[in-house]
């Protein structure tokens, strides 16, 4: 029985090492000016997919701008931007099959945009109205889509990482040739669940891709106070897991790395850790003001590395995109987002019955009773409950929800 691979080699002086001699290079294909590096790997992103990717990136950028503005106008309670990280999120998603499962953190709306989440779907969730499939139960940006193989976001950090391992284990047994991608921040990677997940994935050999968006900050906490190690990629050695560090603002590098990771995962059941080096260009969320903890100068430096601009230049160079298309699409999307938002914010709130449905597959008597009492209470004080009272009588109370179930 050997308990380690390298225990055989012995030394007779106490030599400590902290791994400083291990160097993890940064994989990149596109220069900041959008030109590919000479002698780089073959680029397998074809025109159709490239346009789909770019469209999703642009969509995400526009959505984020509009919705942050809406939040500032007080129309929306909360928002989080993907800005600056579109390549990491969308490039990796594009390298998957569309029915591979994604378990993301919260800043990955680009993945949904790429897969075809409609503006209506975004808006209904953001406004928590009666068309939101989750019935306005969660804060804005907690999207989910069964049809698009994207698990509903949950706020507690890192919980999705071991879940992704379990999901992928199920996929492996099912034998459909699918894999799971889980995306998380470098801050979330400090949680115990991260360690649990990577270790289990390596031991049980599951087709999972761990994509860490190392964007420099966890809210206000810079990476230097998050870990002392060489980023997150270096942790893979501890689990004997394949890993790679990529320029997260380089759409081609992210795409190629994830493509290869997917091959390792699906063909060899090798879990893979990808660390995408990027930057959160916006505030952490609409509740945050980064001026308290980082400099404009630093932000500016990263703004120059904008992944969207870089991809655009590459596309333009190839003749796969032109300025006219850019203008038109930008305008169309802006209008679409704005108009859809206007409709969504006016839609009714979810029916009262949705307060208690889905807690269990079948609502227990006590909870049903709580709903009935609540209805009676609201009927006694209709003015105090403008969101639910108006619909109660009209629709026969909880009947409205029950008819859904």
């Amino acid at each position, binding site marked *: 029985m050997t308990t380690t691979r390298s225990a055989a080699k012995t030394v007779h002086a106490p030599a400590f090492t902290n791994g400083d001699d291990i160097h993890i290079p940064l994989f990149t294909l596109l220069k900041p000016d959008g030109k590919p590096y000479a002698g780089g790997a073959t680029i397998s992103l074809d025109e159709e997919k490239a346009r789909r990717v770019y469209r999703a990136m642009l969509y995400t950028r526009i959505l984020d701008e509009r919705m942050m503005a809406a939040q500032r106008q007080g129309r929306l309670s909360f928002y989080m931007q993907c800005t600056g990280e579109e390549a990491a999120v969308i490039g990796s998603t594009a390298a998957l099959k569309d029915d591979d499962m994604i378990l993301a953190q919260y800043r990955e709306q680009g993945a949904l945009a790429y897969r075809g989440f409609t503006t209506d779907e975004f808006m209904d969730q953001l406004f928590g109205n009666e068309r939101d499939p989750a019935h306005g*139960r969660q804060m804005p940006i907690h999207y989910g889509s*069964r049809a698009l193989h994207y698990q509903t976001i949950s706020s507690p950090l890192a*919980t999705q990482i071991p879940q992704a391992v*379990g999901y992928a284990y199920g996929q492996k047994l099912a034998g459909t040739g699918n894999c799971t991608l889980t995306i998380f921040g470098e801050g979330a990677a400090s949680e115990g*669940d991260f360690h649990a997940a990577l270790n289990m994935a390596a031991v049980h050999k599951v087709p999972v891709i761990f994509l860490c968006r190392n964007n420099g900050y966890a809210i206000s906490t810079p990476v230097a106070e998050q870990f002392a190690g060489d980023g997150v990629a270096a942790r893979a050695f501890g689990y004997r897991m394949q890993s790679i560090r990529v320029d997260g603002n380089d759409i081609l590098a992210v795409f190629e790395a994830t493509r290869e990771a997917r091959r390792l995962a699906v063909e060899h059941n090798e879990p893979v850790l990808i660390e995408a080096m990027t930057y959160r260009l916006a505030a952490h969320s609409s509740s945050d003001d980064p001026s308290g903890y980082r400099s404009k100068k630093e932000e500016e430096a990263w703004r120059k590395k904008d992944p969207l601009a870089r991809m655009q230049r590459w596309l333009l160079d190839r003749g796969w995109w032109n300025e006219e298309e850019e203008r038109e699409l930008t305008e169309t999307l802006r209008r679409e987002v704005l108009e859809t938002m206007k409709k969504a914010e006016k839609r009714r709130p979810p029916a009262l019955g949705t307060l208690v449905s889905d*807690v*269990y597959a079948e609502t227990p*008597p006590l909870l049903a009773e709580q709903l009935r009492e609540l209805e009676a209470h609201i009927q006694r004080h209709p003015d105090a409950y403008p969101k639910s009272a108006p619909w109660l009588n009209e629709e026969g109370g909880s009947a409205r929800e029950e008819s859904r179930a």
Partner: protein
Amino acid sequence: MSRMNLLQAVNNALDTAMAADERVLCFGEDVGVFGGVFRATSHLQEKYGRERCFNTPLVEQGIVGFANGLAAQGSTPVAEIQFADYIYPAFDQIVNETAKFRYRSGNLFDVGGLTIRAPYGGGIAGGHYHSQSPEAYFAHTPGLTVVIPRNPHQAKGLLLASIRSPDPVIFFEPKRLYRASVGEVPDEDYELPLRQAEVVKEGNDITLLAWGAQMEVIEQAAEMAEQEGISCELIDLRTIVPWDIATVTDSVLKTGRLVVSHEAPLTGGFAAEIAATVQSRCFLYLESPVERVTGLDTPFPLTLEKEYLPGPLKVFDAIHRSMNF
């Protein structure tokens, strides 16, 4: 019918579930080759292969996180936590994830296939960390179902029902009864209803309510009381949440008296919920206050375990207090 102990009944239930549905998987610390430290998963790896019954690394938060993901994928994971005392590293995965999975997604995703099994409870000289009864923590968490069997017949029927329930279930097994409780168990596949308390014995003067290993205790107390002519109605709650209020209140409306007993500490234990509900729903019918006979408000001790535990004599004293109020 076969005679078996509670542990064998659990094993039999797992075997039955795995044979009936290949999506059922059993895993946890030492559950593979070894069959679990108590041997609840004995021979399952042999029978169903390493892919369906396996050891995990030693990380409860990972076990439950993994199980949540598997359940979301459509599998039917039965995860073992080696002792209920070690379920807390997984508390976040259970309380923030398992419990809210369906609700937060509007039923787009659910982990209804998940069952978490864990031996729980005292009486085996286990001290703080091999004796706890944490059911009340989970009972305060909407979305969870908590089930506790009291004997081998229940263990098989309730575990099968739990595995197949469309909701995630935490299944606590009274480890003191693993070998001590022996009885006839049907060989075939059967389920006992969740969310239903069982009236184990009818009576008129007082209702005694408990679950799991504590059922034996209230039964013994009832015997002592019957010798004094006090007729006891005995109820096994079986499903702690969502609990069967109607069966309990029906009984108390009849007897006018209630003693609830559990091993967990008094303050914030599930007996509090029962007492609060019963005083509200049976107010005019109660002849005396609902009595709670529970562990002390201390960590679980070792040498003085017997002093700590709510044994038959303590329940008997409570019956007297209730009758003579």
